[in-house]
């Protein structure tokens, strides 16, 4: 069956992709989630294909998730992390790209601390590039796995109110989620102190900005908590972890302001007691483990679809 022409060659971000383009990723991922549970994923879907995980930032979970996704579909998966690659010997990003290109890899999964690094690579390699998180720009597979998790719980992915709370300004997860959730017609609220939620974020589309977390949570269907990195305190953006928790920590009292049974999500890794209280993270409303499970399924779908988009007609 010929692939629809709307399949992008790379997945560099969610911005610019329509709901129609995103739904097939979610549908395929959903089926992979079921197959994974029954240990019956099609192990030949990516047979003979090479996936290289090129990680310039440490990330055990995302890298493992992509690795598992590739292996479940029968791909040869190679991990390259900064610590063991020639990056430390002064090789530039594009020289590394040229090298990997010459090795004829099919899919290149890239994480980099600089916004736009995967876009730069995508112009220089023949492989399909998957952005596994670039700087403060985008993290598209995270948004897809969040969307799939939400859709499985509500049976739909539109008309919901989603509060994204915390260090929104530095968050690539938040940006990708904003693009995806607004593309499907959801109401997106952003909450955080002005030092972590610049006013210009209002320009990201149909979003509402709150500095009062309580108000942001009122009547929300989904509450996404974001990791607060310790560096933010050193940089003078927030005074301390405990003051941050005082204003923006997701605890029982605040969660009660959201709709009954509202989903609690977190991209991980969590700082318990900083952005989220332990009892909330471990509560019935938390779907944090399911997010991780859907992460593998979404990455299987992304690798599969991009790989098929590459096949000659």
């Amino acid at each position, binding site marked *: 069956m010929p692939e629809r022409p709307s399949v992008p060659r790379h997945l560099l971000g969610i911005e610019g992709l329509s709901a129609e383009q995103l739904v097939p990723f979610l549908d395929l991922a959903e089926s992979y989630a079921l197959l994974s549970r029954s240990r019956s994923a099609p192990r030949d879907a990516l047979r003979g294909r090479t996936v290289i995980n090129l990680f310039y930032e440490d990330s055990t979970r995302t890298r493992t998730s992509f690795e598992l996704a590739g292996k479940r579909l029968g791909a040869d998966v190679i991990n390259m992390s900064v610590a063991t690659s020639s990056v430390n010997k002064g090789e530039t990003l594009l020289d590394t790209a040229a090298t990997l290109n010459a090795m004829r890899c099919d899919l290149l999964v890239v994480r980099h601390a*600089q916004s736009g690094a995967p876009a730069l690579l995508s112009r220089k390699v023949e492989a399909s590039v998957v952005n596994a998180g670039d700087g403060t720009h985008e993290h598209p597979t995270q948004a897809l796995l969040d969307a799939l998790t939400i859709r499985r719980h509500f049976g739909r992915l539109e008309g919901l109110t989603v509060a994204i709370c915390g260090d929104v300004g530095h968050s690539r997860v938040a940006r990708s989620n904003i693009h995806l959730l607004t593309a499907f017609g959801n109401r997106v609220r952003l909450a955080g102190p002005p030092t972590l939620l610049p006013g210009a974020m209002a320009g990201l589309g149909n979003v509402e900005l709150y500095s009062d977390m309580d108000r942001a949570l009122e009547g929300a269907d989904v509450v996404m908590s974001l990791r607060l990195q310790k560096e933010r305190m050193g940089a003078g953006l927030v005074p301390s972890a405990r003051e941050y928790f005082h204003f923006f920590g997701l605890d029982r009292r605040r969660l009660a302001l959201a709709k009954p049974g509202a989903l609690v999500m977190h991209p991980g890794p969590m700082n318990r007691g900083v952005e989220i209280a332990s009892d909330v993270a471990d509560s019935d409303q938390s779907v944090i483990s399911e997010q991780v499970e859907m992460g593998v399924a979404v990455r299987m779908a992304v690798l599969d679809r991009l790989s098929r988009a590459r096949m000659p007609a």
Partner: protein
Amino acid sequence: MSDIVFENVRLIDPASGRDETGRLVVRQGRIVACEDGSVPEGARVIDGAGAVLCPGLVDMRVALGEPGSEYRESVSSGARAAVAGGITTMAVLPNTSPPIDNPALVHLLRVRGEETGMVSIHPYGALTRGCEGGEMAELGLLQNAGAVAFTDGTRAISDAKQMRNLLSYSRFIDAIVVQHPEEPSLAKGACATAGARAVRMGLPSVPAEAEAIMIARDLRLTAMTGARLHFAHVSTAEGLDLIREAKSRGIRVTCDTAPPYFAMTEDDIGDFRTYAKLSPPLRNEADRKAVCAALADGTIDAVASDHAPADADDKRLPFAQARAGGTGLVTLLGVTLGAGLPLIDALRLVTSAPAALLGLKAGTLAVGSDADLCLFDPEDSWTVVAGNLPGRAQNTPFDGKDLKGRVLRTFKRGVEVFTADELAGDERAGAAS
């Protein structure tokens, strides 16, 4: 050297306000009075066919890679790019390695310019040793060696007290101080102007206010010291408002801008295009319009190319890591002509105005002046193509744009130093027949 007679040219001399069709005679490298319509014996006659003949352009802000980074742009490669853009005089920044903070280097650059036979080079002296913002450089000795004014170039003087001292001292030697107006702590690490685009792309940004903050401080210090201050590449509405108001109060301040700031916006960054990474960063549309308005009302005294050469390795990097700056020599004329000003006013901003500002004998068609001339067709357009530009550096932010105004010939002291390709072809054909 035989005489040259330009016939059938539209003479535009912004210094005198002259704009008329006529002829111009060059003898011994200088412009001479043409008493009558006769052609001196043995003279070379150039029929301009109605093209504009104006003074060679004066570019008051150019970075070259010499000494130290000749792989980006040397004096000779920069000179080739300059004359292809009609520029015959340029003031060059001191951010070289080593920086231009001693008299011998000022002398070296002036001589290197003369050696090209194409352009005059007027180096800026460093304001502080090494352009590092600390100790004062030997401003008086640098001035004696020919430094045209003083600046730390791409770096702002951050410390207010140091800036006050530099302004005071520069007044004592009657020198101009040129400031890069950007509050450094706000600008640190930034590569885009703050706003929706920077947020969407996840790029570290500097608020436009960082420019106004620095300008407001320095205007007060200038008023306090009675010094003569110039702000380079001003790019925001608020910064220009402050300068406009200060001028009306008689503060001795001037400013320039560069073509990207009236011809482009932050949207030209597109999909992380590093050739559009500039310092200061490209601004929003409201700021761009304010720059156009300030060009029209005279708040901006001059347009400079802000030529900042980079090689491929400088730019083939993630956006935030790429070197800031774009080439500008060959596009200065075309983009400035497109700013929506009357032709003579646009030309004034790149000829007599910067020459007068810096006190240079250039940028005029007055009798007795050096015959530094630019002959261009204001109607003919060309496409900017990175990779095909004259000179070494190819990092133009205007890649792919069409510019109206094609330089046909450029002369330095009466010597033809640039000829457009098709004209050169014609002349070779003529010589063969």
